[in-house]
């Protein structure tokens, strides 16, 4: 390759590298978001496990997950 060819290729590679860097940063961000969602999901059913769930929390969950899921999840702490 001539010098000019090297530089032109380098310019296109820089373009690719920046896009890939964005992708890497976004992968990390997605992982963090996933982690946060998991934490929130773990925290959400907590009131039912000690069976003192306030009515407000229950109703919020019902609208979220539906009543049948609710009944499936309820026996979990017994196991």
């Amino acid at each position, binding site marked *: 390759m*001539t*010098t*000019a*060819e090297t*530089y*032109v290729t*380098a*310019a*296109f590679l*820089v*373009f690719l590298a*920046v*896009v890939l860097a*964005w992708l890497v940063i*976004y992968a990390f*961000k*997605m992982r963090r*978001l996933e982690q*946060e*969602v998991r934490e*929130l999901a773990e*925290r*959400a059913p907590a009131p039912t496990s000690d069976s003192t769930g306030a009515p407000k929390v229950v109703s919020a969950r019902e609208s979220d997950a539906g009543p049948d899921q609710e009944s499936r999840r309820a026996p979990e702490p017994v196991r």
Partner: protein
Amino acid sequence: MSLRNSLGSVFAIAAFAFLIASIALAFYWVPTDADQGFSQRIFYIHVPVALTAYVCFAWGAWKALRLLWTGDKRYDLESYTAVHMGVIFGVLVLATGAIWARISWGVWWSWGERQLVLFLILFLFYCAYFMLRNSVDAGPRQARMSAVYSLFGVVLIPISFLAIRLAENFIHPVVFTRDGPQMAGSMFFVFCLATVGTLALAAALYHVELSGKRLDLKLKELRKAHS
């Protein structure tokens, strides 16, 4: 929501197709420029990226204007994301421009190249935009301040361009110009393909980043509601 998602995928596919096609054509099909030789081919990435950056800044300012106009806070995230995209593409303009300066004139930086100088000023300006966002507590006031600042930015672009042109009168005469002979039809065609490709890429990244930022915000709200 589904329409927006599918729009993002359409942009991503378009970006892939157009960019691959334009890069292949730029390397193997387009005739070599008689004046500058092979190095002129950087043009097919440098200029489309610059145009895309301008479009992103303008889009951010448009969303900022909508925010100030309607007070709807969803425009804040949209404006922020657009400016962020603009800065990413602006950095690319600086990088590819530096490489072009190196091939053409043997230096990594030339103050004689107007577009590079303009992007340096814009880079400084929009870095200050991020500083501003970081140092003001999130809320409607932060949104409005950022919106006002990004409106300043879109006015600064033509004003700075004029200033850079004028400054050449007393700093030093222009030695280097890239206003070579007229572009051949095939060159213009590849240039258009590349421009559409980078624009679609920016739009796709914008959609992904916007939904990421929305998700982030939503999660923060949920967290607050749960604690």
